């Protein structure tokens, strides 16, 4: 636990917490974006440049914008009428606690097993490319196929409007 880590972790946690507790949906998303950015900074601190920048590009640049766009297109952006705590908060808490426990267990286990490894040299982008093209080429292709299918599906959904327009 270094000081830079704390400096970066604090806004990340704060942003994510604010995303849950703020009443205005747009504020929530902006706070969530802060959380994403903090996460990216944490990756950078761990010398994972590629992952860090991809985090910003994908989560800040695309996911947050997509959410914002969805809100802008679909509903009035005023604050919600319901209270922040939903009536079934106990169930939700239980699920969250369970997920946290599993994650913590996994991290703890891997941390103990990885402790022995020497520090990795900085991963170059070229290595990532090599890995994607050789060792992980099948998962990559499957992902590509899945995304193409999703893209075609999205196009089809968008296409249906056309006869109505004319």
């Amino acid at each position, binding site marked *: 636990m270094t000081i830079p880590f704390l400096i970066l972790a604090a806004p990340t946690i704060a942003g994510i917490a604010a995303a849950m507790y703020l009443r*205005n949906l*747009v*504020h929530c998303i*902006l706070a969530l*974006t802060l959380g994403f950015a903090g996460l990216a900074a944490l990756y950078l601190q761990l010398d994972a*440049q*590629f992952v860090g*920048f*991809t985090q*910003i*590009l994908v989560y*800040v*640049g*695309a996911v*947050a*914008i997509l959410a*914002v*766009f969805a809100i*802008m*297109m679909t509903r009035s*952006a005023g604050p919600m009428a319901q209270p922040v705590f939903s009536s079934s908060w106990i169930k939700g808490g239980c699920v969250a606690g369970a997920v946290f426990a599993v994650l913590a267990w996994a991290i703890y286990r891997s941390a103990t097993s990885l402790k022995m490894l020497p520090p990795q040299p*900085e991963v*170059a*982008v*070229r290595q990532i490319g090599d890995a994607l093209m050789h060792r992980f080429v099948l998962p990559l292709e499957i992902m590509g196929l899945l995304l193409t299918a999703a893209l075609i599906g999205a196009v089809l959904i968008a296409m249906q409007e056309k006869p109505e327009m004319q």
Partner: protein
Amino acid sequence: MTPETIDRIFIIWKHWLLSYAPAGVQPLFSALLSVVPVLAVFPLLFAITTVLERKGLGRIQNRYGPNRVGPYGFFQPIADGVKSLTKEDVVPRTADQAVHFLAPLLLVAAAFLAYAVLPVGRNMVVANLNAGVLFFFAVGSLVELAVFMAGWSSRNKYSLLGAMRAIAQMISYEVPLVLASVVVIMAAGSLSTVTIVNMQASYTGIWPHWFVFTPWGFVGFVLFMIAATAEANRSPFDLPEGESEIVAGYYIEYSGFKFALFFLGEYLGMFATSGMAITLFLGGWAAPFSFLTWVPSYFWFFAKLLVLIAGFIWVRGTLPRLRMDQLMNFAWKFMLPMTLLNIFVAGTWHFMAAGSVRWLVCAVLIFAPSVLLALGLEKGKKKIAARTYRFAE
């Protein structure tokens, strides 16, 4: 002083200044010394560009342009600055105060971040990141968020429309922007901007090895510049501002200094994408001919930047604005296929032996489909063509 010393003068100064700093704060001081010039030079360039743009547009339109403040009107930006600083800062009552305040700051901050990876001269880059190009596009996407914040928080319908347009446009054109630069990354085998420039800074005879002098590089450069125009919200893609349609778009409710910040952010974004185009395709700080290498490298970078800015001004002075659907059509039906095709051509180039055959094959591969795509755009659902007219006696 030898040319080498002049070329290195800023680095020498930096080291000289750094030697006075105590050892403990040296990294911090070094970073500061790298960042402050960027914060000083590019806003100054912004000031100069506003005058140049107004004077250039004026001449294009057969006017003088600003010529009242100072010699030939070159102190106009000072007058503009004073004006924007002394103006009342109006915030609409229904606006979301905090977001309304943060939006211009975020925009300018994101625009400045992009300069971190631009090599403005030999060994002159703020941060030589391994994934520099990726960093550039990552911080570029922050601009969209700032634009959304401005448009949404103003609580104005025009600004909301403007923000929707801006985000849709930026997302659509970010894809071809990134894909157009992929060819260079393929050729260079690196995401580091410094490496990319160094690869282009060699010569055959007097001719440089810029990527723009290859078929895929040229097409990539053109596509990159078109996408950059759209990213920078410049005419003919200035729909988010759309003066005549949605008044001023997402910054309609900003006044005074915040408005100036938007203005600054927009121009900084334009310089940054132009700088990236120079880095990727036009050899960065490399001299255009081998016998001109004695001229300091930073001079070449800024000279190229000014040429691209002049191009932006010229285009702005000529073209009318596209419409939203046409803009999208152009992005997805022309730009995207072309960039993908360009990647394919770049791959072909890579695997073919050097010579005129390679040139011919790649040129045909890129030219024929582009004509077809253009025809497809023209002869789409609504045919666009010049018409002849009949006359009644």
